[in-house]
């Protein structure tokens, strides 16, 4: 009974965290882009006259989208048309289950792992679920029954599949270094030290793998340098025939992907919830200091660290999205097939050689 309750609480906490952060990413993106471009950004939305630098904006947007007409073009395939955004939304959202937010929390003799779903193939699960989102793209393009959206959907599918390869290959090196597919195990490995002082994070062991993974995931999220499937203002994308909340779900999925990619980057390459030199009973610095902390504070530090890392990567992704212009389609394909994939292969070989030497 209490086990079930704990699991339920974990699910609720993870979901609320995930959705809330995603919601505020829409606002953060506007604000950050505004600051980058010397503007002010969304600050008008208010709640009975109270407006805290526009923090109510996401709710205003959500209400607006929810009350817009749920329009389905007469020529579309209605069922598939409705299904497509849900597929994208669901398969992206479900990935959060495997991300560890912190180490084991001990309350009253119970050991609670701060991770919703601790499966030993977490990495594969996430990759599989992200692959499923392609169906959302492809289906929406096809079910809209509009030749331009179909082309947009196919373009999207081609891009996602291309980068899926690089994405998978870039992680092989990592799996070789941390011999596990379980996220919590990978994070545990990263808690160790290299040369006695450097945290054994993925970024230090797999710098090339990190770069490839970063680009490949950004391409997966279909945001600006790689936003050819949608091309908000110029090219007709796969969700042209969507409006209201269904369109909103596609947009939401976009931001969910940003967040999940940040989580993955944190977990795989930046030590997850690991704070450098923080152990279960407190800090033990390599130059010989000690700062012992109670268990609750340690877990709080871990969760905080995880969040800080995730926010940093969200910020980075938004920064990149508002800095660079879009690729041309042939450049996009060249970049994926001719650069990222060979590089990731080189990365695997190099990792193997170094590992066999050591």
């Amino acid at each position, binding site marked *: 009974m209490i086990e079930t309750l704990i699991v339920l609480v974990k699910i609720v906490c993870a979901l609320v965290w995930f959705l809330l952060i995603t919601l505020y990413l829409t606002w953060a993106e506007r604000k*950050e882009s505004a*600051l*980058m*471009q*010397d*503007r*002010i950004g969304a600050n008008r939305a208010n709640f009975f006259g109270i407006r805290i*630098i526009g923090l109510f904006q996401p709710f205003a947007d959500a209400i607006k989208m929810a009350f817009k007409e749920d329009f389905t073009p007469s020529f579309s395939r209605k069922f598939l048309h409705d299904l497509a955004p849900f597929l994208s939304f669901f398969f992206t959202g479900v990935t959060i289950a495997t991300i560890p937010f912190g180490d084991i929390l001990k309350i009253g003799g119970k050991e609670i792992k701060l991770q919703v779903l601790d499966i030993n193939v977490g990495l594969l699960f996430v990759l599989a679920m992200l692959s499923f989102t392609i169906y959302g793209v492809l289906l929406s393009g096809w079910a809209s029954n509009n030749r331009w959206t179909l082309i947009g959907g196919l373009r999207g599918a081609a891009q996602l599949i291309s980068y899926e390869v690089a994405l998978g290959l870039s992680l092989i090196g990592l799996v070789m270094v941390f011999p596990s597919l379980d996220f919590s195990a990978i994070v545990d490995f990263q808690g160790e030290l290299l040369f006695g002082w450097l945290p054994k994070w993925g970024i230090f062991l797999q710098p090339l793998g990190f770069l490839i993974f970063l680009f490949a995931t950004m391409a997966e999220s279909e945001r600006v340098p790689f936003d050819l499937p949608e091309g908000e203002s110029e090219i007709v994308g796969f969700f042209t025939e969507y409006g209201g909340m269904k369109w909103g779900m596609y947009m939401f999925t976009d931001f969910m992907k940003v967040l999940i990619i940040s989580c993955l980057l944190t977990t795989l390459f930046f030590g997850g919830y690991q704070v450098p030199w923080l152990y279960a009973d407190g800090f033990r610095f390599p130059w010989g200091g000690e700062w012992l902390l109670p268990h609750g504070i340690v877990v709080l530090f871990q969760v905080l660290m995880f969040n800080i890392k995730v926010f940093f990567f969200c910020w980075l992704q938004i*920064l*990149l999205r*508002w*800095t*660079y212009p879009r690729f041309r389609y042939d*450049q996009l394909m*060249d970049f994926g097939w*001719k*650069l990222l994939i060979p590089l990731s292969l080189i990365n695997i070989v190099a990792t193997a050689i170094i590992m066999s030497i050591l």
Partner: protein
Amino acid sequence: MLKQLGYFIEIIRGGIITTRHFSVNMFFHILNLFHIKTKRKGAVTIQYPEVRQKIAERHRSLHRLMKREDGKPRCVVCMLCATVCPSECIFIEAEEDPDPEIQKYPARFIIDISRCCFCGFCVEACPEDALRMDTDEIELADYDRDNLVYNLEKLLK
């Protein structure tokens, strides 16, 4: 492909520029948020609806019709404004005034603001100084097209 790699330096440079803008603005915005006065203001423009810039004296805003001392419109329906109007948005209909000194007064005076191009020719043309564009009203958007057709009562206000 190698040629494109040369751009990586520029890509990094671009990232640095945007990051600089972001951090500078963020810093000053946060200071301003807590009402800490700084010499530099960050990229803050005027917070428009609350804070307004002073409109220049010669700015042409919404029209108004001037009144005589007794409250009647000063307009004598010479229709020079309607004649000179390049967008043909002024329409006037005259009526005979019982006072032979005034003779003509506008029974209908319509300016279709949705068509007006705010050139100010009508004001220039007016021989009686009956029409001015100095109300400083610049927010003329409306939800209904018909509300943008200003009639005599609205213009005399």
